[in-house]
């Protein structure tokens, strides 16, 4: 059996991801997180914040909640079903920073927590920054005139 025949056999025997189910739960949980954010935004505005401050407070609240749930070991249990629903919102980013910070504590504060904290989130920051620069340049080019 050569490699391509083997590859065909492997593909025939490997079950695919349940896409419909995964997308449904991602929509449900991701949507619920966004709805929670909107609810918090309305609450903060009601309590007297202006729209921009309320937006910042919503981000801070969601990041805090995500970190808290990660610390209690609950976030990954939700994410197991929610997939992209918990990954894409800001809560997923918080989880990606907090989980290695907890995990690598036995390696010490500097080389463990400090060095490993951005192991997963690091690439997101790097490529996020690059995307920002490209977007900024395009924006600048189109708004020059």
């Amino acid at each position, binding site marked *: *059996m050569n*490699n391509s025949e*083997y*590859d065909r*056999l*492997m593909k025939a*025997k*490997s*079950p*695919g*991801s*349940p896409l419909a189910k*995964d997308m449904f739960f991602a929509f449900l949980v991701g949507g619920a997180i966004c709805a929670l954010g909107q609810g918090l935004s309305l609450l903060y505005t009601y309590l007297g914040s202006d729209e921009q401050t309320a937006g910042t407070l919503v981000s801070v609240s969601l990041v805090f909640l995500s970190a808290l749930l*990660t*610390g209690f*070991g609950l*976030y*990954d249990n*939700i*994410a*197991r079903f*929610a*997939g992209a629903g*918990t*990954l894409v919102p800001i809560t*997923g980013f918080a*989880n*990606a920073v*907090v*989980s*290695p910070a*907890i*995990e*690598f504590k*036995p390696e010490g504060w500097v080389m463990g927590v400090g060095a490993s904290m951005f192991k*997963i989130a690091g690439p997101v920051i790097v490529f996020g920054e690059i995307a920002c620069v490209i977007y900024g340049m395009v924006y600048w080019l189109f708004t020059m005139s």
Partner: protein
Amino acid sequence: MVTRNGKTLITDGAFIESFAAIVGKKEGEGPLGREFDRVYSDTTLGQDSWERSESTLLKDTVNLCISKAGASVRDYQLIFCGDLLDQCMGSSMAVKDFGVPVLGLYGACSTMAEALVMASVYTAGGAAERCIAAASSHFCSAERQFRFPLGYGGQRAPTSQWTVTGAGAAAVTCRKSSVTVKAVTPGTIVDMGVTDANNMGAAMAASAFDTLNAFFTDTGMSPEDFDIIATGDLGLVGSEMLRDMMSAEGKALSSSYTDCGILIFDREKQDVHAGGSGCGCGASVLCGYILPRVSDGRFKRALFAATGALMSPTSSQQGDSIPGICHAVWVEHV
């Protein structure tokens, strides 16, 4: 005495006098939960790092295996052991205080079979009277080394396997006991170009096929001659592939064929996708489920063929394919 026939070594005079298996909570809740000597519901084992937890798990298992033989650790001339962690520190830390010569092994999830190959050849060849073969894995120490932190919210692929928290140890001796190691077949590394680290069963299936094929050719036995043929941890995908390949070769595996990764968990209820994996998977199923049955005669003849995916996080990131290896151990009731 050891004689060679093809790739297979006939280990005349190697016996297994005692064996022990200890597993973690999830494995204890699985279909084989009652078969293991001990189930530790606290998977930290009271340690402050997962690596130390794994070492403690293996140390306890080796100690239990020794006490079941009514021996003390100094009665053994050699320990063959291994695990999945960097530089095999999981097993080195476990046996460092025993004061017995150690030969550390790395065969990924095939390590228990590799250790038994070594122990049987050493005892049958007269280089040792009593030695120990042992291997371990721990879900939490493996996750942080090979995948993501425990608290990271990710979704697993349906083909992925769940690393078993467990350890197995077997004491091999030249004194007659109810279990003999008839022959062993050290495996060849087989690489079929699989690069998906989430489908290790598929990466390893070709090596299992290669070793089983060599074993049956060398020994003149056929799959029907065995009460159980258990591959290490091909899981659902790999074991299905192996069945297909063996059938095409005219050596179809009958209902006696199973896989340790499928036996140890309830795949649906325990959410482990394609099944269990890790050195501790084959080791604990062999020492907790197969050997007790060979010992009391419920299985007259058993073939344990543990498989290993010889990849590292570095080789994976560099895009290398995943070579597989499989070692076979033929044990029989005396």
